[in-house]
C-alpha cells in the first residue's frame, strides 16, 4: 500500500507483530500495541479482529515501540517536527441540516502564517457516497486522517456488508485521534451525512452532534449570517445560497479565508458537488447591488 511505503512500515518492527485475521485484509496500519492489555481481545463477531484502537505508526516508529505502554500516556509527546508557523484553523467551513438534507460549504484558501500557500485547496472531501467531511486545522493532518477514516470505513463495509452509521464513524474517528491528544495533531472535522446528521470531531477529543456547525477563523462571521436566515423549511436553492453568502461574508472579513467557495449537498441519494465559485465575482456583484461602486 502506498501509505505503508510512505510511513516506512516495511522496515519497522511492527511488521513482525502483525496478526493477520485473513490474508486479504491488511492490518499494516493497525498497531498491535496492546495498550497495556494482557493480550489482544478478540471478538468473534468481528472476524477475529483485535479490539484495539488503530494507531498508525509515527515518524520514529522504533522509538515509539521501545517506549512502554504506561509511559506513553504520561503526556510525553513523541519527537515531532517543530511547526514553522502557529496554527490557527485559518479557514471557514460550515455545515447545516435542513429539510432537504445537509449542506457543507467551505472556502479554498490554505494559509501558512501570512502566506496564502494554496488558493485552491479542497477542504471538503467525500468519504463515501453518502458521507462528506469538511476539514480545518492543519492541512497535512486533515488529509492523512481523512484517508485513514476512508480506509477504515471501507474495511468495515467489506467486513460487515453495511455502511457504518455517521455516529459510528464519528466515534471511530474520535477514538483513533485520542492517542494523539496533547500532541501537535490539529484536526477539526465536521462529518456531514445523508441521514441529516452533522457531527463535529476534533483532535482535542470533542465529538458533538448538532444542526449547524461552523469551524475556523472565519466561523464567527459565518455564524452571524447562518443564525439569521437558517430555518428548517428552506428550499434547496435557498439553503445553497445561504451557505454561499455565509462563506462570502466570512472571506470578506477574515484574512485567512478566501478565494473560492466549495459547496456539497448531501441527500438520501448521495452527495452532489456544486461547481466551485470564485468569490471575487460575488464581491463585485454585492458592491454594485449596494450602490457602493
Amino acid at each position: 500500500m502506498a501509505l505503508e511505503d510512505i510511513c516506512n512500515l516495511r522496515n519497522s518492527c511492527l511488521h513482525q507483530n502483525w496478526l493477520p485475521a485473513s490474508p486479504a485484509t491488511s492490518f499494516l496500519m493497525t498497531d498491535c500495541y496492546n495498550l497495556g492489555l494482557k493480550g489482544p481481545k478478540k471478538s468473534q463477531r468481528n472476524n477475529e479482529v483485535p479490539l484495539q484502537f488503530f494507531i498508525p505508526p509515527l515518524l520514529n516508529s522504533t522509538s515509539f515501540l521501545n517506549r512502554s505502554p504506561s509511559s506513553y500516556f504520561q503526556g510525553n509527546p513523541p519527537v515531532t517536527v517543530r511547526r514553522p508557523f502557529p496554527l490557527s484553523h485559518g479557514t471557514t467551513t460550515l455545515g447545516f441540516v435542513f429539510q432537504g438534507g445537509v449542506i457543507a460549504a467551505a472556502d479554498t484558501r490554505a494559509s501558512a502564517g501570512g502566506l496564502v500557500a494554496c488558493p485552491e485547496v479542497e477542504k471538503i472531501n467525500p468519504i463515501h457516497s453518502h458521507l462528506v467531511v469538511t476539514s480545518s486545522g492543519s492541512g497535512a493532518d486533515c488529509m492523512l486522517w481523512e484517508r485513514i477514516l476512508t480506509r477504515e470505513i471501507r474495511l468495515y463495509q467489506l467486513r460487515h456488508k453495511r455502511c457504518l452509521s455517521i455516529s459510528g464513524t464519528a466515534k471511530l474517528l474520535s477514538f483513533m485521534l485520542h492517542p494523539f491528544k496533547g500532541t501537535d495533531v490539529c484536526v477539526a472535522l465536521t462529518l456531514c451525512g445523508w441521514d441529516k446528521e452533522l457531527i463535529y470531531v476534533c483532535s482535542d477529543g470533542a465529538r458533538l452532534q448538532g444542526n449547524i456547525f461552523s469551524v475556523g477563523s472565519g466561523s464567527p462571521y459565518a455564524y452571524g449570517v447562518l443564525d439569521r436566515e437558517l430555518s428548517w423549511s428552506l428550499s434547496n436553492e435557498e439553503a445553497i445560497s445561504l451557505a454561499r453568502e455565509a462563506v462570502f461574508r466570512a472571506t470578506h472579513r477574515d484574512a485567512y479565508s478566501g478565494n473560492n467557495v466549495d459547496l456539497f449537498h448531501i441527500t438520501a441519494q448521495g452527495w452532489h458537488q456544486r461547481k466551485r465559485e470564485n468569490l471575487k465575482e460575488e464581491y463585485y456583484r454585492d458592491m454594485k447591488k449596494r450602490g457602493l461602486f
Partner: protein
Amino acid sequence: MLQSQGNEVLVTVADDLVTADKNSLSSLTAPPLASSQSVPLPFPMSHGTTTLAFMFQGGVLAAADTRSSCSGLVACPAAQKILPIHSHLVSTTSGTSADCALWKRILARELRLYQLRHGRRLSTGGAAKLLSHMLHPFKGTKLCVAATLCGWDGGEKQSFSGPRLFYVCSDGTRLQGSLFSVGSGSPYAYSILDQGVEWKLTVDEAISIAREAVYRATHRDAYSGNFVDIYHISSKGWTRRSREDLKEEYYREKEKRTKEKRDVAGLDSVCAEK
C-alpha cells in the same frame, strides 16, 4: 496643551490607573480563554462586548449590548456601553469599563472647555484626535480603551456638516470609517452589517439591522448579552431608544422556528399519507 492643574490631576490619575488596574474588578480584559490548551484561538479574545456603529443617510446609529463581564463572571448585566459626550457626540466603549468611564469624562470636559473658549463645538475628527493624543502617554501600559466616536458635525462656523464616525483605541489607532464593530462579538455582528448596511437605509431599517446584529452576536458570544442599547445621532442631536431585553427576541424567534418546523413536518406527514 492642558492647563497645569489638569496635568497634575492626570499624573495622579495615571498612577492610580497603573496600580489599580491589577485589582480592578470591573476589568473587561479577560485573559484569552481557549476551549482546550492545545488549540490556539483563531483571534485573541478580549474586549468582552459587542458594540457597533455605522453611518447612513439619516445620521449615525450606534448600538451595543449591556453585559459587563470579568473573566467568566457577569459583573453587571445592565451596564451602559454607549456614553453620550455632548448633544451631538456619543461614544461606544469597549475594553476596561473603568478606563472607558474615566476617559469619557475627561474627553467630555475637554470638549466643553474647547466650546467655551472658542465659541464653537469641536468636530468629531478633532475630538478623536484629542482623545488619541491624550491616550498616547499611556501606550504600552495596561490601559485599554477602544471607543468609536459617533457624531454629527454642523453649525454655522463649521466647514463640514454631516455624520462622522471615528474609531480610537489606546494602542494609538485612530481611523475614520463608515462602519465599525468592536469587541469579542464583533465578527458575528460584522457579517450581518455587511449584508444589510447601505447608505440609503431609513432610520427604522437601520435600527432593525443594528438590533439584529447585536442580537446575533449576543447569541454566539459568551461575553455579550442581556440588553441592547441603540442611539441615533442626527442633526438634531442624539436620541436613545428604550433598552430592549434580548431574551424576548430569543424566545420570539424560537417560537417562530418551532412553528415553521411543525408546519413543514405537518406537510410532510400529509404527503406521506397521500
